């Protein structure tokens, strides 16, 4: 039962005007700015009417967290503090969101894994927290370089998971993300991922919305669960979890609760399509050869397509923007003409290829690769090589310097 009084057009204490988000993102003038991805996160948060940001340093997200600290000092963030650990940060984020705050945090790599227990808890509690994941290696041997393996672990938490290709995606999707995750029929946390360093530490031209416009504030009364206080559930409900009782209805309640989380992920589909202009972007979907990718692998794929065109090989592209909700029908449609589907990934397991194989008919068309991992770069030439080798256009080439 949301308050019907609109704040649109009024000003916050910093003099920013609360602006209709659709107008702000689609109609307001944009200013080209040369920023790193971390600086772009700061600029998005400046406009996000965020109540609470909680930080714990881990590379490569530390810089973004520190920059948001500056925003707090400037008065754009309601509260800001450092938690004792990543696990503590995510727990504290839950507390703030239970209390009705718009919450933001950032994480990366092993920190994400350390905090993992909290993510399904966020989803189960229907907390629309936004978490930036600046992906880095999580496995031994230790690497601080970009590697998207941690996304695979987030896919089954019940969170929305989006994978940004560029800093421009990051800026837009941070702001749009709150619009999707705070819908009352969704009301789930969002893991907005990017490939660390490639996005966070490189500078790019990003078109920013005016700094004197900001999102309307979060309205906790639109939550599908009651806001927390000491007399209201879910806190009191959790004192006596129904799962502690061994009877059919207790199990049915818990099972229904879990189903409801995934139903909410499904409901996010139409809102994500609305705000992101579709769950995927496509090029040349009539081509026999398709590259399907997410994150910066999309950029590498796009360059590979250009190189292949120079050799007379026509190739199409699917950019997967959201991993949860999973664009099953969209990918099926976009790849229906493809004889060969290549899935370049910055991780060792090939989780995106597995998702695609599980989605489309005749999945033997999917070539899981090329893969790089541990932070290694993926030159577009190795995508070209993978495609040409598979098609028998030439023999595999030998990487320079190997094994001498």
């Amino acid at each position: 039962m949301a308050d019907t009084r609109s704040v649109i057009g009024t000003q916050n204490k910093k003099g920013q005007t609360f602006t209709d988000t659709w107008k702000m993102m689609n109609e307001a003038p944009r200013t080209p700015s040369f920023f790193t991805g971390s600086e772009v996160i700061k600029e998005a948060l400046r406009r996000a009417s965020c109540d609470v940001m909680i930080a714990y340093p881990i590379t490569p997200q530390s810089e973004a967290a520190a920059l948001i600290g500056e925003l707090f000092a400037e008065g754009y963030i309601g509260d800001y503090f450092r938690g004792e650990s990543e696990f503590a940060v995510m727990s504290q984020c839950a507390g703030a969101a239970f209390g009705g705050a718009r919450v933001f945090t950032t994480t990366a790599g092993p920190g994400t894994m350390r905090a993992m227990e909290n993510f399904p808890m966020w989803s189960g509690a229907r907390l629309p927290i936004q978490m930036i994941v600046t992906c880095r290696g999580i496995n031994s041997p230790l690497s601080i370089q970009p590697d998207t393996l941690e996304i695979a672990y987030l896919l089954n938490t019940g969170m929305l998971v989006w994978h940004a290709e560029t800093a421009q995606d990051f800026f837009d999707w941070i702001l749009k993300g709150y619009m999707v995750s705070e819908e009352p029929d969704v009301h789930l946390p969002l893991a907005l991922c990017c490939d660390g360093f490639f996005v966070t530490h490189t500078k790019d031209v990003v078109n920013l919305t005016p700094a004197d416009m900001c999102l309307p504030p979060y309205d906790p009364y639109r939550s599908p669960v009651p806001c927390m206080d000491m007399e209201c559930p879910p806190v009191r409900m959790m004192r006596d979890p129904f799962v502690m009782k061994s009877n059919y209805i207790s199990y049915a309640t818990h099972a229904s609760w879990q189903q409801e989380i995934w139903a909410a992920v499904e409901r996010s589909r139409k809102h994500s399509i609305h705000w992101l202009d579709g769950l995927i972007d496509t090029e040349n979907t009539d081509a026999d050869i398709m590259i399907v990718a997410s994150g910066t692998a999309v950029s590498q794929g796009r360059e590979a397509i250009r190189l292949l065109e120079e050799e007379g090989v026509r190739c199409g592209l699917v950019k997967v923007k959201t991993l949860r909700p999973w664009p099953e029908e969209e990918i099926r449609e976009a790849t229906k003409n493809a004889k060969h589907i290549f899935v370049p990934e910055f991780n060792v397991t090939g989780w995106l290829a597995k998702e695609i194989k599980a989605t489309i008919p005749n999945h033997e068309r999917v070539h899981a690769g090329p893969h790089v991992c541990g932070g290694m770069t993926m030159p577009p030439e190795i995508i070209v090589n993978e495609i040409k080798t598979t098609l028998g256009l030439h023999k595999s080439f030998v990487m320079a310097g190997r094994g001498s």
Partner: protein
Amino acid sequence: MSDYRVLPGPEHFLPPAAASMGIRLPNPGEAHINGVIASEEKAYEEAAKQFLMAKVPTIFPGPLVLWAWNEKAAKKAAAIRQLYNTLKECVQPGQSPMLIPMPDYRPKYPKIDPEVEINPNHPNLTIWHNKIDCCMFVGVHCHQANLSLKIIRGGTSCYTIAMCAQAGHEDAMLSFRDASVEKIMKLADWVRKLKGTVQPRLTSAKSGASN
């Protein structure tokens, strides 16, 4: 569009959430009936018919209307009382309208009394104990409403209606969205309008207690 239809149960040991079966919520100005998008006007008529057909048509108001935490909630509560009174005036002998509150989602000790209240964690008890064959949720937080609606669909044959103040509920057999005082009153008008035109299922009533 999905082939799945949201129908009175008992559907399954563990029925799926309707959203995962492809049922989509209505857009503003629309409603859904059995998972099929319909005009609000058609939904008013169908909801009123279901109320007037039922042996025990029941309204389950939740905290968002039972707690007078703002003026709007109080007005909605008054509208729901009026809908209930209208229902009582319009039913035929043998029909027993009920108003059963859901003021709180917390566990009850030592157990809930399903004759006088409903709890989202075990809504089937209230349905069974009162032989409710048609009910409407109003003012229940969406998450809790969906849990209840799904458990009811799974284990009982009760027809469920949701009068939702937000985006609506796929797990009800009929759902309105953006509920307001005006919409509640309009449903009452439809009940009054259809008075005497709908045959109640008295002798062949499908009991809510289906197992």
